[in-house]
């Protein structure tokens, strides 16, 4: 509860030209956030991966084929005034948009599993616990106390490692500082990425790297100033806080949905 | 649901939506109570005994 604190807007910039598709972000996220696993995880439609790396291909024949990897965390959409696609549909207020941090939260113990938010999310960033989370005997020892394991029957998703923000804030309070420094609050995927493809920080803070890279334009729906920056499904108006960078035009066209619409020409 | 619930805000949405709902529920409640009480009174007055 920080009254009149500076309004943060935590966001991410992912450089698709640096991303190698190694999957470290996915595993870092699973390890950080007590994500469960099953014996068979090959049905990707019921496999919980808060951070998922998609493989995009340009569809051209050999040897003109090209591929690109696109890591997809929760976009923490701001929508219009915090009404992201998933937040306003939740009937039990189990998910929420924080105007203080810009994080879309999810309370697992409040969620009763109607899955409306999953229907609402165009990014498939929300996952349902179809099964009880079960760890092989003894393996529950590695579970982190900072993130509560989710029970069967509820929806979960990427939290931008909010617990790290909580811990960083506790430290700041203990040291009687007002603010958490940029490097003090970084998500697990950002920290792990061997390519340094993920940058995380406060989009509202011009000193933060994310803000410097994309320079979100507050007067134009927070689109990035950079020519090579785009947001996934920009046209839907979800106003996501995850920006992507790539020099490859085919990737940008495929992802931001400007290819069909009337504005196909200009971006 | 109720003003003392954490989620409650005194705003237009809550007043219109919950207001409408409580209004409807009140009508149903009062209606049913009326029917029940009247049925008890009628019965005590010996109405409805067949033939």
């Amino acid at each position: 509860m920080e009254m009149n604190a500076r309004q943060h807007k935590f966001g991410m910039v992912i450089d698709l030209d640096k991303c190698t598709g190694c999957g470290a972000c996915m595993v870092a996220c699973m390890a950080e956030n007590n994500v469960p696993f099953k014996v068979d995880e090959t049905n990707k439609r019921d496999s919980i991966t808060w951070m998922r790396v998609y493989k995009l291909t340009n569809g051209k024949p050999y040897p003109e084929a090209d591929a690109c990897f696109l890591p997809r965390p929760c976009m923490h959409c701001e929508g219009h005034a915090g009404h992201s696609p998933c937040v306003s549909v939740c009937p039990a207020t189990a998910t929420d948009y924080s105007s203080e941090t810009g994080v879309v939260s999810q309370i697992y113990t409040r969620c009763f599993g109607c899955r409306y938010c999953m229907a609402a999310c165009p990014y498939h960033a929300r996952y349902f616990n179809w099964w009880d989370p079960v760890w092989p005997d003894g393996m529950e020892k590695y579970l982190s106390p900072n993130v509560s394991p989710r029970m069967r029957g509820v929806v979960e998703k990427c939290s931008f490692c909010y617990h790290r923000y909580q811990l960083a804030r506790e430290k700041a309070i203990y040291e009687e500082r007002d603010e958490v420094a940029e490097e003090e609050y970084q998500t697990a995927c950002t920290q792990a990425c061997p390519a340094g493809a993920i940058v995380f920080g406060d989009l509202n803070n011009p000193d933060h790297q994310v803000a410097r890279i994309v320079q979100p334009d507050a007067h134009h729906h927070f689109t990035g100033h950079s020519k090579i920056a785009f947001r996934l499904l920009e046209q839907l108006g979800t106003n996501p806080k995850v920006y992507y960078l790539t020099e490859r035009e085919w990737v940008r066209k495929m992802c931001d949905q400007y290819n069909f619409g009337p504005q196909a020409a200009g971006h | 649901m109720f003003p003392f619930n954490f989620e409650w805000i005194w705003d237009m949405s809550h007043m219109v939506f919950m207001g409408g709902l409580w209004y409807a529920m009140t009508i149903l409640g009062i209606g049913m109570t009326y029917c029940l009480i009247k049925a008890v009174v009628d019965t005590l007055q010996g109405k409805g005994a067949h033939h």
Partner: protein
Amino acid sequence: MSIKDDKAHAVSDAAAGKKGGGTILLFFILGFAASMVLGWVVFPQLLYSTKSQPFDFNHALHNEEVGDCESCHFFRQDGTFSGVPSLAQCTDCHADVLGESQDEAVFVQQYVHPEREVPWRVYSRQPDCVFFSHAAHVIKAKMDCATCHGDIGTSTSLKPYQENRITGYSRDIWGQSIAGFKTHTYDRMKMDDCAQCHEQAVEAARQAEMMDPVTRHFRQEIAPMIYPLDRQAAVGSSVQTQRDACFVCHK
């Protein structure tokens, strides 16, 4: 059964109804009274099982010896709170029996020597989904321990631990009153109780803003136009509830 029989039956039933009015009312009252006793007296007895602590502990005595709460319940360098002391902390003094109490003997024999952590039952243990920052409350908001924990620091022995058979939590979370009433801030520790306090704070801030319309107008209307990226957080950070957002207290 013929129609004739039916008619006869109905008439006799109706007659019985008139005669039995008192009986019916009596049974209604009986049922009512029985359920009241069941719900208000028997049910709470059944709902909680009383469990004893591994051994008794005298807060008052320890407080006298070490001087303050912080010696045992302290903040770590990273701002986290240590909570219930670990065995290692106790062993600093209690490597061997110091006093004469039976409880201390139990402690030293059963826990200190085999190096076994004491399985304390914690009255204030919250569900795993709760994130609670002692630093935010004690250091930043300068709250007293007693606001939430009551006067446990001056107690001379541990009260019995009443465990809810369904939820596994201490009765102190719901409160001793089965109806959920409370007189002190520390009587209950449910989400509503956290919310109550937080709401007062949010409300106070809102009032403060209301009192100064110029500042309020500047903050809410003018400033965002000039510095679109440098907005101040609105009072109450949740878009849904206009209060604190979920993740403030949940993990």
